[in-house]
């Protein structure tokens, strides 16, 4: 798994766009809307390598924070100009409202690409990059508000360990969110999807990234991955409550959600 991602790291984003015809952005946006984080949330993004989820989180929290500040200013209608200026000053240094995201990945290359992207796109505050294994996270218990793993859990050898670690590092009331390829139940769509996966994707892999085998591995690992209900049962086994999943695009991708209660 490590080597697959080492070779793939630089072209990861480009491949994602071409494989999913850009829809992966929509999927990640939907994940963020489902999370609906408020300022002050501490997010752990595991296997988040190039930082897609992390950047979306920062954007989302920033806009929520903006709205909050606007509402507060509206309430301050009767204050003097001096007071308004002071309160604005205080809040200016808190555009994220103390929200933070920690991006954790097992692969140094992916993290490097992510850091470069962050610099390039201008994300400076609220981000941390940590090297770590999802089956054995280098964090204390009860730390994070939300744990996400987007398109990463199928690469974990022992999914149950990863789920247990997720449970451990989440605060009580914390949320587990998993975005992953899943099973299509519609038979017609399933055939089209298979056709596309096995014929088109490895070819794209060769053409764009010069790597047929990694993408062959990718497609096969998607087929091997447990279906929605099974993953839901595994998440419940790890101790999460209110476990539910939402199919996107008829099951090509599914978002599983659980709470540590």
């Amino acid at each position: 798994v490590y080597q697959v991602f080492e070779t793939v790291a630089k072209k990861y984003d480009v491949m994602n766009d071409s494989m999913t015809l850009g829809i992966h952005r929509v999927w990640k946006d939907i994940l963020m809307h489902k999370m609906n984080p408020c300022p002050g949330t501490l997010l752990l993004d595991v296997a988040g390598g190039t930082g897609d989820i992390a950047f979306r989180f920062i954007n989302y929290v920033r806009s929520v924070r903006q709205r909050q500040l606007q509402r507060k200013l509206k309430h301050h209608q009767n204050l003097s100009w001096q007071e308004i200026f002071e309160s604005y000053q205080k809040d200016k240094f808190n555009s994220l409202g103390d929200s933070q995201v920690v991006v954790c990945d097992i692969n140094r290359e992916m993290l490097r690409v992510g850091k470069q992207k962050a610099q390039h796109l201008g994300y400076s505050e609220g981000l941390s990059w940590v090297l770590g294994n999802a089956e054995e996270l280098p964090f204390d218990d009860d730390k994070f508000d939300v744990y996400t793993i987007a398109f990463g859990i199928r690469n974990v050898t022992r999914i149950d360990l990863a789920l247990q670690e997720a449970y451990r590092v989440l605060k009580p009331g914390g949320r587990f969110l998993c975005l992953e390829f899943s099973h299509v139940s519609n038979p017609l769509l399933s055939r089209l999807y298979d056709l596309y996966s096995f014929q088109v994707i490895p070819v794209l892999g060769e053409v764009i990234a010069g790597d047929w085998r990694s993408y062959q591995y990718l497609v096969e690992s998607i087929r091997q991955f447990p279906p929605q209900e099974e993953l839901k049962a595994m998440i419940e086994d790890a101790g999460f409550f209110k476990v539910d999943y939402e199919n996107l695009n008829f099951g090509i991708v599914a978002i599983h959600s659980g709470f540590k209660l």
Partner: protein
Amino acid sequence: RCQHCPPLRALQASAALRRASDEHKKEPLTSSSQQHFDSRPAGHQPEQEPQGPHPSYTGQGGQESEDYESEEQLQHRILTAALEFVPEHGWTAEAIAEGAKTLGLSVAAAGMFHSDGSELILHFVSECNTKLSKLLEKEQKLVQLGKAEKKPIDEFLRDAVEARLRMLIPYIEKWPQALSVLLLPRNIPSSLHLLTSMIDDIWHYAGDQSTDFNWYTRRAVLTGIYNTTELVMMQDSSPGFEDTWRFLENRVADAMTMSSAASQVQSTGEAVVQGLMGAAVTVSN
């Protein structure tokens, strides 16, 4: 697996508080819970496996004590805690997040609910209806014990509606927002159910025992009075909402005179209908 012990103990800790609020579960009006929760039998403290996807290997042992709190109860507690933050944040997921924080939970727990705050509003309405029922029951007991006079119908209705509307006063600024959310197609079944059961309750305590068509007209009339008074209250800026109460008084008085004139209207109505039928027959010929 000891990983489960800390959160379960946290849930167990306030069992005593929850037993006190147990009687509120006896109310059939707990329709703030979603469809996929089984309705719990009244007054039943969970001694066997509580509903919810509990992992099988915690079946035996300490977690099975009767203090175990279900997800539904926890959600109730979060929503109740969230009400305190509504005047500041409105009926939103933010208020729910703040409520969860006061209970020692992560703000992400607000993700259990819809992002538009529907559950919070429905929970609030349900709680208000419960309070109203208890109030009316207490008054009825006083009358039965002879400690109070039985009120005439119009005064009874007026007082009941006023008592219920007064519960909105702390949240009055954000209530229009709540009303619009209650009218969303998704929420209409629940909000309608809550409204009709409240109206039912009021008529029940008013001593209505009709089993004929009057049942419907009475409920329709009172629903109309309640809704219009609520809307008037939204934009009433008089001290102590006296304009609203005066409006209420007038509407209830109207309803009283209307019922006595109802039979007159009915016969007039029949006459009108016959006239129209005759006209239609004439025209078709």
